[in-house]
């Protein structure tokens, strides 16, 4: 009786131990690493497929990919607690804040060893992830923003559907032709609304040749005269159409990702959006005929100005397996993986080599060529890689609201931004001895 019990116990223990350590009994032990991504839905599926492929391609590392919502805050807490993922998604916005606090590790050593060359990347994609002479992340997808216009609405308004506005002045003229009111005087359709979707209220300054920051002098230049001009243009919409009327009109805009998106619902004929926009048009307004071109530029600006952005991978400080993490990043940075990812996400591959006729032909976005051209443009711009950009962005959004609501002149609003952000910047520069 006793012997039987013991046997059962031993068998149970054996099963437990072998069960926990998984495949350890068979051959080499795999190092498990975790990878946090912000993507869900079809974008996650693409990443998952690539991760599976990587896992199958070798027997040393096993990547476990997790979609994480609100990644920024969770990563912050995870790094602080010393329990971060081994690989994390990161954007250019977070590079400087994480770099100055050693929140991510510099990749230079790994990049050199892996023989990854800066020259193989479209330069803006690679360079926006470097700060203080170090490379902190590698780009995996590339996006740029451009004017999208609805050809059907152009036709109805008597405009040439194949001739988008090239300058801000033309944009304003087109807007007037495309704006309609109902009998009660409510705006029911507009050509363009600089407040929608309001994700990058700072971006307009680039179209007037404005500058947000002087990295040499470490001066915040929010009230640079060209920036003021840009915000004056923004305010001209509130002055022309009425701040309240614009807000009332905009209150009918639904969510971005849905059929109530004002561009899909044909409430706005022209919008400033990124290379991902075509996916959503296909999904929510499949019959729409649309065009894509560089966004118009104003006085002081230059043609082919665009906001360019990336998705990137970095290794947080405290990652348990940084070497294996980079092994995975290296694999994800191969032309094969990057192109597969780009086609899956319908974005661009950050590699120069991917920019070829064959890849373009395969790409589901019919205007991918335009987006590519913008990333090569000397007037391509990206969000600032500086330590207090999150505060700066918030202040710019407040200034934008204030200007759109006619509460302050652009000069006043932007001077306030300069003052506040400079104060924060100086504090950080002293604290981290930058």
């Amino acid at each position, binding site marked *: 009786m006793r012997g039987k019990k013991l046997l059962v116990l031993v068998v149970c223990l054996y099963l437990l131990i072998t069960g926990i350590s998984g495949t350890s009994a068979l051959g080499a032990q795999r190092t498990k690493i975790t990878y946090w991504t912000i993507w869900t839905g079809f974008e996650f599926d693409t990443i998952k497929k690539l991760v599976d492929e990587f896992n199958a391609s070798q027997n040393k590392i096993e990547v476990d990919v997790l979609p994480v919502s609100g990644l920024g805050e969770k990563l912050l807490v995870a790094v602080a607690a010393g329990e971060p993922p081994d690989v994390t998604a990161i954007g250019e916005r977070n590079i400087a804040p994480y770099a100055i606090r050693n929140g991510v590790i510099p990749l230079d050593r790994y990049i050199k060893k892996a023989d990854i060359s800066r020259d193989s990347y479209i330069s803006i994609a690679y360079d926006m992830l470097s700060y203080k002479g170090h490379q902190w992340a590698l780009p995996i997808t590339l996006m740029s923003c451009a004017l999208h216009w609805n050809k059907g609405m152009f036709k109805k308004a008597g405009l040439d559907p194949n001739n988008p506005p090239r300058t801000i002045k033309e944009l304003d003229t087109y807007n007037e032709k495309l704006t309609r009111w109902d009998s009660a005087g409510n705006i029911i359709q507009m050509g363009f609304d600089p407040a929608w979707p309001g994700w990058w209220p700072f971006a307009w300054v680039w179209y007037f040749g404005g500058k947000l920051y002087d990295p040499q002098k470490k001066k915040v230049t929010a009230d640079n005269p060209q920036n003021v001009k840009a915000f004056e243009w923004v305010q001209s919409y509130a002055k022309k159409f009425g701040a309240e009327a614009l807000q009332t009109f905009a209150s009918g805009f639904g969510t971005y990702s849905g059929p109530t998106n004002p561009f899909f619902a044909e409430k706005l004929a022209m919008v400033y959006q990124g290379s991902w926009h075509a996916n959503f048009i296909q999904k929510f307004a499949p019959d729409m005929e649309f065009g894509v071109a560089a966004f118009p530029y104003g006085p002081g600006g230059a043609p082919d100005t665009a906001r360019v952005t990336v998705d990137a991978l970095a290794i947080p400080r405290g990652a348990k397996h940084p070497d294996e993490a980079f092994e995975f990043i290296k694999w994800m940075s191969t032309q094969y993986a990057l192109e597969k990812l780009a086609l899956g996400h319908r974005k661009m591959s950050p590699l120069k080599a991917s920019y070829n006729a064959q890849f373009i032909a395969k790409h589901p976005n019919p205007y991918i060529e335009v987006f590519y051209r913008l990333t090569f443009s000397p007037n391509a711009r990206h969000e600032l890689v500086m330590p207090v950009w999150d505060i700066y962005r918030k202040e710019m959004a407040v200034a934008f*609201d204030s200007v759109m609501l006619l509460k302050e002149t652009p000069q006043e609003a932007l001077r306030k931004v300069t003052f506040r952000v400079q104060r924060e910047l100086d504090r950080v520069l002293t604290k981290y001895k930058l």
Partner: protein
Amino acid sequence: MRQRRKNLRNGLLFVMPWLIGFSFFLAYPTIASLYYSLSVYDMFTPPKWNGFGNYWELFHDPIFWISLSNTFYYAIFAIPLGQVIALLLALLLNTKVKAMPVFRTIYFLPTIVPPVVIAILWLWIFNTRYGVLNALLAGIGIRGPNWLGDPAWAKPALILMSFWTVGQPMIIYLAGLQDVPQQLYEAAELDGANWWQKTLRITLPMVSPAMLLNVIIGLIWAMQIFTLPYIMTGGGPMRATTFYALYLYENAFQFFKMGYASAMAWLLFIIILTCTLIIFKISSKKIYYAGK
């Protein structure tokens, strides 16, 4: 003697889970946050002692003052008006009508709706163009404002919304009302008191302890308002709804200023404590605890 020691040991063993939980999840974080509030701390690099630097900086931070005044604005209107509404509803639900439990449930329902759902729902109610609220206002000839888009109306909108979830204080009032001895009313009726007199002289004094409780709980909630503005306005337009807790959150989790945020948290604790003490002080003569 031995028995007493044994009892002590057993007693301690029984409260051990609570003691451990308390020290790890409450006492330690609280003390740590006090230390962080006195240092420059970004969560990634070790905290650096800064004395009262964070507090000094707070007093010179215009956005801190905006967030504080927004919060007081909200509390000053939301609490008293909310109490009046909760009490009125409780009085109404205390009458003898058929199917009363059904009505009580209906009035309590909004309180158990998750905040995120409330936020999404009210985003539509407040919609300038298609919202129910402005449609009702239009019915009586008023052109409704842009509730959440206009800095002047965003706070009133959130206050208005808070009345929708007065179920909690309402239930406490209802319990208080049912504790009022019937003989008091009967005696008053014999003396010829009308409804208003009975309410003013009997009901209100009898529920005054519940009122004190509700006001203090309401104060604590109002000073920490976060979820609804976070989802609905993100603190905008033009910081009109950047409440205290929202700015605290921004500092802690977006701007890497955990020390600064900790200082804000401690200051908020002191503010709420002071307000509570003041309420206790001025109410002490007016609260009627039966028999004492």
